[in-house]
């Protein structure tokens, strides 16, 4: 029974995710067109709604060309390594409260955040492998840039979330949410430590408890690092089409290229999901009684919709920024990462620790 419900959840999440990825491509094109005084794709179906299907068909029908100087095994496995981690991040994110008796999270890991960072960093192997396997100079440069970039921003990103778990680690989290026997007790049953459900529970109390307000600096660092992790402008150095032609995926064609392309959007959705869960209250809204885990099916569906709406809002930000800003230079990017964000994130940890210590009355 448990296995069946998990399988259903997995297929539901991956199905929705892939659909959203396809339509994010359309959204990106429409929003960019909107930003640039253009029409954008509007020929295939009403408002271009069938465009993603046409695009997908096109990718499938194109010749899958493998240059004969590439290192074939790596060349073939790289796109898969890129897209799989992007889809796996969602395994630990609570994308809703309850639907019936099912908790809307695939695997409620108590080390959720560690799992996420581990999985996210796997994505870079795909890019590095693609750059290496293509055996060509532009992808090679793209691969190098990407590994340097992702490694540096991962550190800032990881450190930026430390204060969050210092906050939610406060004792008495459950007590302030109605204590034992309530909906929250059921939602948080068996969770501890670095669990995402607890982050949502902490934020559900009031709007002020949203961590974007409690930890604005952490939010900022995480947001910028998320841009860097997903290789989006202003951090799209690994592809940098005007410099490196197409960066690490220069030599790819057909569906292999499409996998890189989709992975970028899947990564974006994963990053948005993380942002929403960590800083924007997850599936909860602090009014209209939507702050507590749902007891009815309608409430459960509403919570899922709220989560999706928040994710889309963050995705819009991603797209908006991409079509507004120029691109950083390699060394400027490294400087920003190591000299600004890492010290800032460290300082944020120290300050949070100090404040918590003072609030606790100077007790260890």
């Amino acid at each position, binding site marked *: 029974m448990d296995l069946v419900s998990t399988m259903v959840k997995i297929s539901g999440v991956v199905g929705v995710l892939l659909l959203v990825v396809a339509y994010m491509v359309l959204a990106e094109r429409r929003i960019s067109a909107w930003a640039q005084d253009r029409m954008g794709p509007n020929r295939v179906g009403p408002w271009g709604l069938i465009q993603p299907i046409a695009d997908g068909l096109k990718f499938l029908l194109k010749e899958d060309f493998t240059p004969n100087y590439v290192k074939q095994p790596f060349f073939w496995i790289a796109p898969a390594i890129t897209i799989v981690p992007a889809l796996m991040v969602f395994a630990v994110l609570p994308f809703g409260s309850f639907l019936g008796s099912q908790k809307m999270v695939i695997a409620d890991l108590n080390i959720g955040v560690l799992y996420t960072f581990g999985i996210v960093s796997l994505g870079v192997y795909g890019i590095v492998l693609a750059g290496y396997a293509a055996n060509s*100079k532009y992808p090679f*440069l793209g691969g190098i840039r990407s590994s340097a970039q992702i490694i540096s921003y991962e550190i800032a990103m990881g450190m930026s979330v430390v204060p969050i778990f210092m906050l939610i680690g406060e004792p008495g989290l459950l007590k302030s949410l109605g204590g034992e026997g309530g909906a929250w007790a059921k939602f948080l049953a068996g969770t501890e430590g670095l669990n995402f459900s607890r982050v949502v529970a902490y934020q559900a109390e009031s709007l002020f408890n949203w961590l974007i307000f409690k930890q604005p600096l952490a939010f900022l660092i995480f947001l910028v690092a998320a841009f860097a992790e997903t290789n989006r402008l202003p951090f799209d150095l690994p592809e940098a089409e*005007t410099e490196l032609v197409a960066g690490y995926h220069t030599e790819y064609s057909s569906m292999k290229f499409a996998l890189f392309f989709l992975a970028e959007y899947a990564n974006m959705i994963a990053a948005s999901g993380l942002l929403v869960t960590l800083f924007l209250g997850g599936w909860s809204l602090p009014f209209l009684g939507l702050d507590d885990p749902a007891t009815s099916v309608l409430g459960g569906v509403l919570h899922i919709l709220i989560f999706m709406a928040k994710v889309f809002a963050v995705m819009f930000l991603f797209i908006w920024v991409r*079509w*507004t800003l*120029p691109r*950083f*230079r390699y*060394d400027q990017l490294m400087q920003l990462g190591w000299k600004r964000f890492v010290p800032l994130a460290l300082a944020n940890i120290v300050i949070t620790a100090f404040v918590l210590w003072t609030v606790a009355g100077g007790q260890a």
Partner: protein
Amino acid sequence: MSRVEEYEYQDAAGQGQQAASEAMSTAEEEELQGEKMLLNMGPSHPATHGVLRLILELDGEVITKATPDVGYLHRGDEKIAENMTYTQFIPYTDRLDYLAPLANNVAYALAVEKLLGVERDLPERCQYIRVICCELARLSSHLLGIGAMAMDVGAMTAFLYTFTDREKIYNLIEALTGARFTTTYTRIGGLSRDMPEGWAEQCRHFLTEVVHNIDELDRLLTRNRIFVDRTREIGTLPKEVAVDYGLTGPNLRASGVEFDLRKAHPYLVYDRLRFDVPIGTVGDCYDRYLVRLEEMRQSVGLIEQCLDQMPGGPINLEDHKITLPPKERVLTSMEELIHQFINVTQGVRAPPGEVYFSAENPKGELGFYIHSLGGGTPNRLKIRAPSFVNLSSLPYLLQGCMVSDVVAILGSLDFVMGECDR
């Protein structure tokens, strides 16, 4: 003995062995630095705007040596000119700087008119329309230059904004000349046709729009921190170096040299119009961007003044040994029939001699040197292409830059290979 110990030993060995140890250490340094990577950028690369090829020697991402390779778009325009009449060559000038064909048409026509000794006798209306053409071309070219530069450093949207405005310019040019791209608008001693009715109003309307859009571009880019970081102190060309390389146009002025042919050797009616020549202070990519931005505003002012002062009257020289006579008189009068016949079959008869004329084109000084032995075709026609000369500074500019700077520098130089390779 390890390599490090060897170094220390040689350092301690005293002055006498200095030379020998230096020779050794350079060889070893090369070995320590490892292999350099040769990166071939172009001739078909998105940032080279055409078919420029750069051979970059890379140490990591830092460029240790850059060698530009030009000529992929060579069509032998100068030789072609020797095989046709002066008028027949006008369409070829469209294809030099193909982002500002109108300005090329005007510059070439003025060069031939100088050879004929009639460049001061042109009807006023013709001169004013030609100035409008030049400035519209400058607007169009600079819009693309800035947009492409912004796109190269990653700001794609700015590029599309400028293209919206260029579309409007093309509509205006189409209404004026009948063609959008390859205009072939000038004739020796005049123009192919007059301004159509209502064109002046359309043009004024466009100018009010473009001023607004230039401001928008200004707000989007000029103080954008990333854009400034990517362009300031990048590709700096000091005054002296810029002069040594023979740079002209906005690239020269960005380095702080106040030289604009429209002021230095005024042609057409530029001496009657008020405009400022913006100059930069540092000579980096950012200055080149700022100079172009301001030049666009000045161009708008120039076109407005021309429209205000536009006189009536003919647009062609009355001398029908140079311009074609009106068609109805060709069919009724002997004299005009002969002129028409000679002009079309043998070309405008130029006196023997040589002449150099250069105009301030969007990319810099576009010069035509014509050597004539008399008759309807030039003996030799040499084109001084500003893009070619401006690109010659690339080895200097690119040394020590990073790969990402290459695109910013190329974008800021704003070259066109059609003109460079001729």
